[in-house]
């Protein structure tokens, strides 16, 4: 663990030095790595998080630097039709993610047909799920609108379930006079981790979830007026099987159906961008045993976000989001009563105001600060919080430095 922190610090230092050196006109080592066909890129970030109560990615009341992302990717354009690419990501987020390097994506992309107005192709391997505006690049600090993505849709407590799929995706792009259409459809096996149990079962039971059948994922995007307007529809549906462990007591060998549907809209002007997304998350639990409390629910989340570019290198973001564990029980009263009040109603919803500042010191180095005012704890994990001791109203403050090459 300490090793990852030290590595990240060194990488940050090295990259910052390289970035500063790159300001002179001497091609840096990294620039030379970007060859004719082979490209190597990467990024690293270190984030300090302080909360007034509750824990989010290892935050404490005194503030803690527990959130670190380091990634290295390579791509090789074998010929104009065939691209190989892969990325290794190490992500340390307190007890939620231990910082071991994992294969984030690794794929071959084959363009089957290309004309001056469109293309059609297939990707195979470990693929990032193209959900909403941000999921494909959710771990890249430079592509996020704030330090943390809108949590009511892009849960950090449950990133792996919707992060990637081992499988195949077909894609097609078409540019017309009236706008661009882009379609992706795919299937494969969901990539899972322990957080899925914490979120959907409420604890880490002796057994584990395994993919059951195929996970389907797809999206449709329309963009017009020079990509100023972008409208999207994306979704995923997946079935997980629960395999009980050796030690009792455990749940029965149940099944869980998870789907997520996201509507996205964005308008881009020169100095500002307005973004809104809506998500619906239907869940169904079957056969986990008589004592298991959940059967069916439909999670819901939405946000409205405005970004204002004060300068080309400085922007401000303001966002309001709301999320509910079950849209038929928005104040969480029924869910709380079902567990005899053990978990407060405020753990079943979240209403969050976020204000953030981003400063790109140069093209390689970015600094960010976020302040978020939370009501409710739906977006944080029981893995790092005792659900009975959660504070309903809490604040979060985060500072981040990120480098890229």
């Amino acid at each position, binding site marked *: 663990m300490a090793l990852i922190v030290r590595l990240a610090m060194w990488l940050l230092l090295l990259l910052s030095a390289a970035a500063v050196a790159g300001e002179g006109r001497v091609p840096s080592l990294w620039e030379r790595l970007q060859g004719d066909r082979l*490209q190597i890129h990467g990024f690293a970030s270190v984030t300090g998080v302080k909360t007034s109560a509750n824990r989010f990615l290892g935050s404490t009341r005194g503030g803690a630097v527990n959130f670190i992302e380091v990634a290295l990717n390579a791509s090789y354009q074998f010929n104009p*039709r065939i691209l190989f690419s892969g990325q290794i990501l190490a992500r340390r987020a307190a007890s939620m993610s231990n910082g071991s390097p994992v294969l984030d*994506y690794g794929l071959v992309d084959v363009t089957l047909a290309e004309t001056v107005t469109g*293309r059609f192709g297939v*990707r195979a391997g470990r693929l990032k799920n193209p959900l909403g505006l941000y999921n*494909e690049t959710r771990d890249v600090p430079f592509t996020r609108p704030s330090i943390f993505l809108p949590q009511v849709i892009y849960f950090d407590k449950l990133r792996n379930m919707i992060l990637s799929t081992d499988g195949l995706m077909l894609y097609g792009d078409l540019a017309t006079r009236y706008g661009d259409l882009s379609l992706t459809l795919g299937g494969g096996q969901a990539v899972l981790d322990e957080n899925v149990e914490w979120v959907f079962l409420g604890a880490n039971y002796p057994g584990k979830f395994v993919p059951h059948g195929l996970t389907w994922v797809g999206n449709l995007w329309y963009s017009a007026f020079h990509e100023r307007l972008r409208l999207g529809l994306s979704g995923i549906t997946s079935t997980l099987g629960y395999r009980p462990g050796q030690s009792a007591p455990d749940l029965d060998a149940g099944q869980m159906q998870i789907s997520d549907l996201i509507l996205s809209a964005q308008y881009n002007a020169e100095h500002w961008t307005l973004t809104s997304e809506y998500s619906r998350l239907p869940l169904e639990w079957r056969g986990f045993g008589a004592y298991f409390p959940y059967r069916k629910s439909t999670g819901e989340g939405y946000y409205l976000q405005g970004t204002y570019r004060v300068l080309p290198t400085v922007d401000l973001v303001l966002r309001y989001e709301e999320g509910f564990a079950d849209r038929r029980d928005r104040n969480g009263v029924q869910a709380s009563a079902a567990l005899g009040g053990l978990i407060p109603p405020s753990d079943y919803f979240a209403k969050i105001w976020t204000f953030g500042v981003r400063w790109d010191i140069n093209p390689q180095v970015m600094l960010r600060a976020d302040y978020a005012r939370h009501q409710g704890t739906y977006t944080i994990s029981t893995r790092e919080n005792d659900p009975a001791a959660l504070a309903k109203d809490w604040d979060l403050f985060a500072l981040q430095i990120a480098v890229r090459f």
Partner: protein
Amino acid sequence: MNSVHWWRQCATAASVLLLAQLSAPPALLAQEVIVHPGVGVTTITTNEARLYLTLRLKTWPNGVPVKVFVLPDGDPLHRRFSNTVLGLFPYQLRRVWDRQLFSGTGQAPTAVASEAEMLWRVASTPGAIGYVESVPAGASVRPLEVR
């Protein structure tokens, strides 16, 4: 110093800074899209230019692979090229490149440091496309008309 006076000074300084940053570059400065002579086209549409520059089209009609060269995001010529030729704000271009690069679905364009470097990289790379303020006489690149 009383606080009202101090605030007024701050506000004046801030607005001067903002105006300096926000004022648009002179609209009359020209820019030329240039390609390697082996590319085989002399005219493309704005839509095609956008697809080539965002690396979504990877080959020229004659089958030669496309190689994109760009100046840094903050360069005035890059900003003008992006706005007037492609109809995209530089941050939109960056967003498309980053999404492709960091999801493994595409590569990034090659960044060059100056117009001089742009000229020789485009002249010496088959399939290259880039842009300059104006093409000097005798340069072995071909201007490309974008309609």
